[in-house]
């Protein structure tokens, strides 16, 4: 089911079946162009598949926005090793709740996307790594997989192509870190989700130490449309170099929060005003955290920006996993900053010192600051610690914690300073060892 009213401004590609009755069943899927793309793909060469995907401008919907076709092209063929297709359904970036809908409402679309990837690199096994909190989706996925076997879209000699493909569901058990691809692969092997040193990247040494295509759930879900309707059609939906559409999980202080499928490059202000009905209670916009909690905040005066990877990068933030958090004028940015860093401290796996210690120190300082015991130099201290974490960890979790903190201070320093004035110094808090 869907949990919010749709908007007439949406362009529905991956969400086109969400409102249909029994949208998760194979009958609905087959009646609405389902498994049409895989039939085309089994007549294509690996190179042709990857070229088509490159031409579509599809970029990873998990956060980094890496071109999907290029990612697939990095997988070495004919190494003699098996290859794997891994779907990252560990959706856990605060602000993001779209993969849930894709699996709940259209699981066959995801399966078809994974099959196309499987055929492209002649892989015989795929795994859907789903976060433990989404336990209710496992029976839905397993039913879809069973239906696909029954109809001959999974199993042996699929569509008489001589190619075999199996898909399994694998569950995590509560760890944000496992959304990072190499940590996910460790977790899939039954270990703690500690990131791997890269390179080698998963394309070369991935699942079970073999070449692997690892994409986000939404990325795979877009793949069938690319092959069904053609790369040019798909690319044309979005903005230059940002093909297609994406699901935007809008949260915060707007009148109509919800998940909406928008063309890439849709203006942020129009999303707030026209799709989401503006700021609630007649308040003014203060800021937007555009792509999940790890993406640097934009002040209201910086929000005249298009929602695609390149435009948001130009605005010195990121499109991330597509979850804009809209904040009104009453929002306490210091409190948001504290909660953000608490999260990253909780989720840091502890493998790299800059991340483990950095998130702990930042949480201690921000807690003290928020409780009224802050000092003027704490503002620079937070900024300096965060800057020193950037780029110094195995995986992007350290950056994900540091980037938003840098953003909060750069964009809202006066609010931090104001906090020093308005709050009476709290009870004596011991000097932190690092100060």
């Amino acid at each position, binding site marked *: 089911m869907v*949990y919010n009213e749709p908007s007439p401004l949406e362009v529905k590609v991956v969400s086109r079946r969400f409102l249909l009755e029994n949208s998760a069943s194979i009958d609905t899927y087959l009646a609405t162009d389902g498994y049409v793309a895989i039939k085309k793909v089994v007549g294509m060469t690996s190179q042709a598949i990857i070229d088509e995907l490159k031409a579509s401008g599809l970029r990873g919907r998990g956060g980094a926005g890496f071109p999907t076709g290029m990612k697939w092209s990095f997988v070495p063929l004919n190494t003699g090793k098996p290859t794997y297709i891994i779907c990252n359904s560990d959706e856990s970036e605060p602000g993001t709740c779209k993969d849930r809908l894709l699996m709940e409402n259209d699981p066959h679309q995801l399966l078809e996307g994974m099959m196309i990837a499987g055929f492209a690199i002649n892989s015989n096994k795929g795994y859907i790594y789903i976060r433990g*909190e989404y336990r209710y989706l496992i029976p839905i996925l397993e039913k879809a997989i069973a239906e696909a076997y029954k109809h001959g879209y999974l199993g042996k000699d699929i569509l008489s192509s001589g190619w075999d493909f199996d898909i*399994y569901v694998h569950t995590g058990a509560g760890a944000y870190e496992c959304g990072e691809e190499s940590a996910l692969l460790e977790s899939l*092997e*039954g270990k703690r989700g500690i990131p791997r040193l890269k390179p080698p990247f998963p394309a070369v040494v991935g699942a079970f130490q073999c070449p692997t295509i690892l994409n986000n759930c939404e990325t795979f879900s877009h793949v069938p449309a690319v092959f069904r309707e053609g790369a040019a059609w798909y690319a044309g939906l979005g903005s230059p170099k940002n093909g297609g559409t994406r699901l935007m999980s809008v949260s915060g202080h707007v009148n109509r929060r919800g998940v909406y499928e928008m063309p890439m490059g849709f203006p942020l202000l129009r999303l707030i005003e026209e799709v989401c009905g503006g700021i609630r209670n007649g308040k003014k916009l203060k800021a937007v955290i555009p792509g999940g909690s790890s993406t640097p905040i934009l002040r209201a005066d910086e929000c005249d920006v298009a929602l695609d990877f390149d435009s948001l990068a130009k605005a010195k933030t990121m499109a991330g996993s597509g979850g804009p958090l809209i904040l009104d004028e009453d929002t306490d940015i210091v409190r948001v900053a504290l909660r953000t860093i608490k999260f990253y401290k909780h989720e840091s796996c502890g493998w790299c010192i800059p991340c483990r210690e950095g998130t702990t120190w930042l949480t201690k300082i921000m807690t003290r600051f928020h409780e009224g015991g802050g000092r003027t130099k704490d503002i620079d201290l937070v900024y300096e610690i965060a800057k020193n974490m950037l780029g110094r960890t195995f995986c992007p979790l350290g950056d994900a914690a540091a980037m938003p903190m840098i953003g909060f201070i750069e964009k809202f320093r006066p609010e931090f300073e104001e906090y020093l004035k308005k709050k009476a110094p709290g009870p004596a808090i011991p000097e932190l060892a690092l100060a």
Partner: protein
Amino acid sequence: MTFSPTLEERFAKLLTSYPPGRTRSAVVPMLLYAQDEMGFVSRELVEEVAKRTGVTPLQVDEVIGYYSMMHREPIGKYNVQVCTNICCLVVGGEDLFEHAKKCLGIGHKQTTPDGLFTLEEVECMGACSWAPAIQVGYDFYHQVTPERFDQLIDALRKAESGKNQVS
């Protein structure tokens, strides 16, 4: 150690889901599915999962320490998880958690004396657009106000006392 036929079937399937020699992969799913049935991860379960997947009990233990959904001790029948991460925070998630503490009379990771409810402040559960959100066990509840929270807890309490009367 014996499990229900459904769980045994699941385990059998899991052990053949991974490439040859990779049964260690089944450790996390097996623990979670077993916990669903037994309520927590007991010492006996650790040893059993180790035996079935061909790893040492220590290798199972180190995994349990990493994942936040694994419980080494029994918890309440209903695990009430309140998200206070930023998307919930800005629309009342932290206030809801404070309310939940009062309503249930317990704090973070504590269980009510009757063993019915455990309360947990959790990180983002993937319901940001319908915040503030809670999960009771695996069930999602969206746009939860303090009033709706009380109604839900009441309904669960009533359902339980009804069951006791029947038995």
